[in-house]
């Protein structure tokens, strides 16, 4: 076991980990941050996406020890300071961008990474950026609408499907 320290959602945290401890397990089991979901555990579905030093990564495919010292942001860090939903989260609710909600933490974190890189993405750019995030319920259309709305663009501009 080794001790690792990192910043999670602005707070300094530390914990004892094995070499094989995944970042997803460090967050969920070590820190109690169960908003980060583990869907496939094989880097396919994107439910576990968090930001490490501002970049979207699949936390089931990163060792906690390898990102010691980094700044990590999870879905729990996306709400506003007063606890109300952040812009992207609110847009997912407004546009019905979720049904069961299992994929949503990863969808929101990937969308946030996209908007940080590209504040006004096109529909095509949104679909391409979310390629690694799989949703088994909503069929993506409302997710794309939510991201368009969160970027201040007209969500109704995309054709209904």
């Amino acid at each position, binding site marked *: 076991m080794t001790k690792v320290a990192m910043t999670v959602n602005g707070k300094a945290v530390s914990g004892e980990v094995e070499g*094989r401890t995944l970042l997803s397990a460090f967050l969920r089991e070590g820190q109690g941050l169960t908003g980060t979901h583990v869907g496939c555990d094989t880097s396919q579905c*994107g439910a576990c996406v968090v930001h490490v030093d501002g970049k979207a990564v*699949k936390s089931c495919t990163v060792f906690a*020890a*390898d990102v010691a010292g980094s700044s990590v942001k999870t879905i729990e860090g996306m709400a506003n300071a007063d606890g109300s939903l952040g812009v992207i989260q609110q847009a997912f609710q407004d546009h019905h961008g979720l049904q069961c909600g299992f994929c949503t933490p990863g969808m929101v974190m990937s969308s946030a*990474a*996209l908007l940080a890189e590209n504040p006004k993405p096109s529909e095509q750019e949104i679909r391409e950026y979310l390629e*690694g995030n799989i949703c088994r319920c909503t069929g993506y259309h409302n997710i794309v609408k939510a991201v368009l709305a969160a970027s201040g663009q007209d969500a109704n501009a995309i054709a209904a499907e």
Partner: protein
Amino acid sequence: MHNFDFVKPASVAEAVKALSADGAQALSGGQTLMPTMKQRLAAPTMLVSLTGIAEMKGVKVDGRTLTIGAATTHATVAKEAAAYPALANLAGGIGDPAVRNRGTIGGSLANNDPSACYPSAVLASGATVVTSKREIAADDYFQGMFSTALEEGEFITAVRFPIPDRAAYAKFDQPASRFALAGAFVARFAGGVRVAITGASEGGVFRWAEAEAALSSNYSADAIKGLSLDPSGMIGDLHGTQAYRANLARVMVQRAVAAS
């Protein structure tokens, strides 16, 4: 996954030492190795992370040569290899954004998956694979599916690409995995054209000599219209038959020529 000791050296020299231990294995982005370890297809007793070694990261241009540190992520290559647009474009098309933020060129080349993108760029460019021990020409480096010239304890530190006059990568995505069902990298230099095919062959990435000859005398998609690859050595699976892949590989070469 079986447990292991984790070390993260800060220099190539330290990594050489760590990797000389019995049971030690290099870890770069982990995007291939971690799923493999979860399936217990690999069980190293020590992982040596290469991602903390500053001298193994980044993209440098010197005249018509582009050098990429082995621990440079696909996302960084996509953004910073503007001097070699076909290569930047290839890197930006690997997997998805989260995979590109971790996966590295060194990991991809060491793994030499028969459907991976980078091996085709390295082979078609006639790049040099720089390791902790020596320099290996691309033509000697790839030795069949999942097999390379790397020796025990040896690791890639950088890859040096001569920048071609014209080049492009065309990939037909396998939609579930996003790996290449067939992909072609075409590079045109003053001395001739090099063509490398990935995704198609049981032998992994390979050069297509007939297409190179045809394109060296007439650089146009039509020049290889009548050529065909022998389907017998091709991968045949539920995604495509051998004949389908042989044909698709030629179509990808034509698309790459048209796009370059």
